[in-house]
């Protein structure tokens, strides 16, 4: 009886020690960085996907500095990349695998999606295996480019983190003017939309428009509100010409404006931005994106995004902020590629 009680006490005593052993030392302990989601040990588990990224992602350099990625679309060197960053490169060079290609040729660009198609003189490349169905469930693993050396691509891993959707935003094309309601109260049906200001050297200035002109007809339709004009500009590309009528001093004039591309902005637009660190200059106004939780650097955009099965579910198009990254889904990417490469 006594011995049993004694044993029980010992067991209880051990239990307390054990519980202290499992809890107390935890305080102040830190998980080694290599064991974290972005760490080398976890990265190693994604080696099969890394090997795919090694083959089907392109590294773009401006001079000697790697500055963004691309998706290899064909064995003969067609590559998709992020347009707004690509167009800023002074001396673009492209690496696929270990081989460096000089003087890529710009085949075309789609400003609505912010995608450029370029071509390098290559053969025998391994293209990305675009998944027909890019509707990956939320919580699915995704893998994309991380940092890179001349020989080796590394990866970032994370998950699909929100609903697939369009990202509203400012249009990628501009008329080069500021619009508003007529300052005075006007009952007149032909009041139109007032030009509040004209950007020097912009499309509107070149077309002869001035402050206080009133636009009454845009693309053949009478307009009363600023939003009507913006709606009609959706889907337009830089270089497109839009016709309009305007009223100045009681007289009606007709003119044409050549649309220009909106300059990207890294200026913070909210308190979150001010505290977010880096984000892509162009990170809105996309027709459809998949959202992932990988916190990449902005110069790591443009490359392929893989599912766990190694198929390409999309192309990384923007770091929106420190917690949100956007991906063009592979189904859309296939269409963009077809249109840009004029393949049937």
């Amino acid at each position, binding site marked *: 009886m006594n011995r049993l009680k004694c044993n029980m006490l010992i067991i209880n005593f*051990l*239990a*307390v020690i*054990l*519980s*202290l*052993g*499992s*809890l107390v030392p*935890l*305080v*102040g*302990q*830190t*998980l080694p960085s290599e*064991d*974290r*989601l*972005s*760490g080398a*040990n*976890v990265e*190693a*588990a*994604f080696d*099969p996907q890394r090997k795919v990224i090694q083959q089907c992602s392109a590294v773009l350099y401006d001079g000697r500095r790697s500055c963004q990625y691309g998706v290899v679309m064909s064995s003969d060197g067609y590559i998709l990349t992020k347009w707004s960053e690509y167009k800023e490169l002074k001396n673009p060079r492209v690496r696929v695998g270990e081989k460096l290609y000089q003087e890529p040729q710009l085949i075309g660009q789609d400003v609505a999606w912010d995608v450029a198609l370029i071509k390098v003189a290559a053969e025998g490349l391994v293209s990305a295996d675009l998944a027909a169905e890019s509707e990956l*469930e*939320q*919580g*699915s*693993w995704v893998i994309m480019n991380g940092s890179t050396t001349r020989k080796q691509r590394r990866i970032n891993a*994370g*998950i*699909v*983190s*929100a*609903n697939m*959707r*369009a990202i509203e935003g400012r249009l990628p094309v501009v008329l080069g003017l500021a619009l508003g309601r007529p300052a005075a109260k006007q009952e007149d049906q032909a009041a139109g939309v007032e030009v509040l200001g004209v950007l020097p050297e912009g499309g509107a200035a070149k077309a002869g428009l001035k402050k206080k002109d009133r636009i009454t007809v845009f693309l053949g339709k009478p307009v009363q509100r600023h939003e009507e004009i913006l709606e009609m500009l959706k889907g337009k590309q830089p270089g497109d010409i839009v016709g309009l009528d305007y009223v100045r001093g009681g007289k009606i004039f007709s003119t044409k404006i050549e649309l220009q591309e909106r300059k990207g*902005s890294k*200026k*913070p*637009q*909210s*308190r*979150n*931005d*001010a*505290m*977010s*660190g880096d984000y892509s200059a162009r990170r809105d106004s996309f027709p459809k994106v998949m*959202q992932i*939780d990988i*916190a990449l650097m902005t110069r790591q955009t443009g490359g392929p995004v893989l599912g*766990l099965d190694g198929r390409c579910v999309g192309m990384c198009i923007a770091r929106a*902020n*420190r*917690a*949100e990254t956007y991906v063009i889904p592979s189904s859309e990417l296939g269409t963009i590629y077809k249109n840009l490469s004029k393949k049937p």
Partner: protein
Amino acid sequence: MGAMAQRLPFNEIRFPTSQKDLMQIETALKKHRDHARAATVCIKVGAGSGSGVIVSRDGLVLTAAHVVGGVNKQMKVVMEDGRELKAKSLGLNSETDAAMLKIIEGSDHPFVKIQAQTRPEVAATSEAPLLGDWVFALGHSGGFDKERGSVLRLGRVVRWAAHTMQSDCKLIGGDSGGPLFDMSGVLVGIHSRVGAVVDNNMHVPMDVFHEQWEKLLASEFIGEGPYARKQSPTMQVVEKFEQLIGVALQESIGGLKVAGVVEEGIAERAGMRSDDLLIEVEGKQIGTFADLAKAVEVVDQDKPLIVKVKRDEGVATLKLEFRVE
């Protein structure tokens, strides 16, 4: 019943090494994702917003003290489908950042299970997640967005401190007060602070709630810590002013540092730039938030507000124009 008995296989290994390990993590996450999301809410307080999570059928919500900012305050919670329900804040702990609120509209709310209180006297168990355990976060990052939904993030517990758990789930403003779950879908923490680096973010562990559950339920304002600073009249005035002119300010040596300016906001149009040091408003010297609150408690928006900022080139006088021609 300890967590030990039901530890998941991927939490028993130091890191995943195979596709099978990765699949197990993904499968667990997907299994609990929808249920967890249904109980995750956006909390609207005044002009700001945060996140929270429902933990009882009758609408008890756990969140962060700095989200609710005070006890017995009226606020709204937004459900996943966009329905807005009336709510009232209960108690908060301004030192640990724990807070509760109650939805006072509707019934039969979706809710999640919370981690049981850790009892050190129970042999070799930790109800709370251990260092390295996989976890997932939800929250209304940057405010409610019905098209997007709440945002899901995966990570691991990377550090334990006395009243704080850290994970490498990526968080941003608006996530505060949102839930952190273990891979069995059990609530283990509430998002508190965004870390200086993206993969180090702070959560209030569930044991902190358990320790003061009754007091929080009884609408007590506990402690004099920093996390309820929104409740102070000073910070209310400062935040209103920040929103009005489109700027983020930080207390700094000799004035208020401009952490960022909002594009096309009043401050930017007046020429204010990041890293300016705000030192004077309408002739009054500004050293702290309290000074600013006094200076801008009443702003006459019919005339410009004159401020002085210090920058590398010297001191600049700026005119903040509220009226646009």
